[in-house]
């Protein structure tokens, strides 16, 4: 009997419980699947694509029809040779070419790489600043807390979009090297974005540090960094993971909006935002759906997937949630 009891009543660890709750949420699973799919699409696609990000294709006019020059040895200087631009999707260019004769699909992949890289890097920096400052504020309290939280208030009051626009126009004017602009973009966005994380971390730590287990760590004589990073931060982890997941989505949205306005990822680098930007030309909007719809759909899918995942994780981590 006792043996049977042991097999039927299996203890479930909190981790398993969370996983179980998470797996039951269809939307969260869908979000996870989409993210994996997009990551695969970008990485595999970049490995497979035969074209370069800025590679320009040419076409030749033969019998009143534009025929692409496929032979790399053929000269591209001639009377009836021109840039193979705004091509409709075909077997060589699955999504056609853009207005400068570059392969849209290849740029889509590179744009995805850039957008995802910016989003992840941004969240990592935000987490680093937010957890450190929020942790310090919550742990020490007093004037340190006051100082950090005033800083948070000030940054919170700054209207982020206008400030980012102003900063980027300064960078453009001062001939800031295009290559490093992506990193500057990450820096600016995370400098304005860490406050939410800092707030959550501080609030959690304020309530946690009064609990018995923290008194115990003090009694045992653990060092302060150890108490913060080993005992307090792990307890804030669920909220952090949820915030980071949802944050990735919003960073992608912000970055694409900036790139769309022409202030984000600079040309000739591709990003989903500046690819949708081509829609500003009414002719392209009307006739060349292949140039601006795919990047838009990619932004939508990615952001939505991260939102689904974040929401599912929040539900899964919440012990009050009943199913």
């Amino acid at each position, binding site marked *: 009997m006792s043996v049977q009891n042991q097999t039927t009543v299996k203890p479930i660890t909190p981790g398993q419980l969370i996983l179980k709750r998470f797996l039951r949420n*269809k939307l969260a699973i869908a979000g996870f699947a989409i993210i994996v799919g997009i990551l695969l699409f970008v990485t595999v696609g970049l490995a497979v694509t035969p074209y370069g990000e800025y590679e320009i294709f040419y076409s030749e006019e033969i019998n009143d029809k534009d025929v692409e020059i496929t032979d790399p040895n053929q000269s591209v200087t001639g009377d009836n040779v021109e840039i193979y631009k705004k091509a409709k999707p075909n077997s060589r260019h699955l999504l056609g070419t853009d207005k400068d004769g570059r392969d849209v699909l290849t740029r889509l992949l590179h744009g995805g790489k850039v957008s995802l890289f910016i989003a992840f890097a941004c969240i990592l920096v935000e987490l680093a600043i937010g957890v450190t400052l929020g942790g310090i504020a919550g742990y020490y309290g007093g004037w340190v807390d006051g100082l950090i939280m005033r800083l948070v208030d000030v940054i919170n009051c700054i*209207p982020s979009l*206008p*400030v980012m626009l102003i900063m980027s126009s300064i960078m453009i004017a001062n001939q800031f090297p295009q290559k490093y602009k992506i990193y500057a973009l990450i820096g600016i966005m995370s400098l304005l974005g860490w406050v939410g994380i800092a707030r959550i971390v501080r609030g959690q730590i304020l309530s946690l540090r009064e609990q018995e287990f923290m008194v115990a760590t003090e009694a045992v004589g653990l060092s302060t960094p150890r108490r913060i990073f080993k005992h307090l931060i792990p307890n804030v982890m669920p909220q952090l993971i949820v915030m980071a997941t949802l944050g990735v989505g919003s960073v992608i949205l912000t970055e694409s909006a900036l790139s769309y306005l022409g202030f984000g990822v600079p040309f000739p680098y591709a990003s989903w935002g500046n690819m949708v930007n081509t829609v500003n030309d009414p002719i392209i909007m009307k006739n060349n759906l292949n140039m601006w719809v795919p990047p838009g759909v990619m932004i939508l899918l990615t952001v*939505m997937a991260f939102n689904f995942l974040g929401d599912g994780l929040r539900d899964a981590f919440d012990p009050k949630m009943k199913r």
Partner: protein
Amino acid sequence: MALYALIRAMPSNYVKQMTSGKPGVTDQLIEQLEKNYGLDSSIPEGYVKWAGNVIKGDFGTSFVYKQPVFKVINDKMWASFWLSFIALILELLIAIPLGIISATKQYSKTDYAITTFAFLGISLPSFFFAALLQKFFAMDLRIFPLQGMVTAREDYEGFRLLLDIGWHYCLPIIVFVVLGVGSLMRYTRTNMLEVLNSDFIRTARAKGLSEHKVIYKHAFRNTLIPIVTMVGGSLPGLFSGAIITEGIFAIDGLGYTALQALKFGDIPFLMGFNMFLAVLTLIGTLISDVLYAVVDPRVRLS
């Protein structure tokens, strides 16, 4: 203050923009103009001057519009306000019922459908959605105008003018509503779920009240508390305008004006605009705090 330094460090000097490409403009004239616009002083000096004037209630004169900044903001903000206000009302009308339905039927097919729709709205980039709408409704179907606020070359007056503006507002409002409705719906759903799990709802059900009465008399009212405070807090924000959406549809509101000001280097306007935004945020927080005490009888200001 840092903001002022940033804006002053901006590349597009208004005087240079204005004079470039015009022959006959001497360096002397440029110097004179820069002096007139107050661009000759150093950054800290300029800031002190600007701040001094602000204390006296003078936000300066917009370079582009040649009018006091306050007047420009006042002129432009109403277009933005009506746009967002109509959108907000529509959002509330859609979001609250749907949020309640998805909370009461948690994890049903309806809930999943509504949730998916909500997230779709949250995740849509405004410029992409606006472009899609323009492509299909304005270019292909020709139901709505592409952009602008009034039909050009038609001098409508009175009611006709109102109709014309309304017709032009349709697409931007759709963008606002679809983008904004999701978060409001999620908010309603979360709050409703929380209320539905509380003890007094169990009591109400135990008393034998009908499900309809439980939800609409007992639960719904309590769900309204956070919603009212949130919506009240967002009211001032309606004046601030939306840079991207207004830009795409060429709506002559505050957001569009701000984008133009950014391009031309209209320093007084940008400073005034950013101050305006900060003040709006503060008023919003204040309103939601006060409303919270007004709506919820359990909260008393002592």
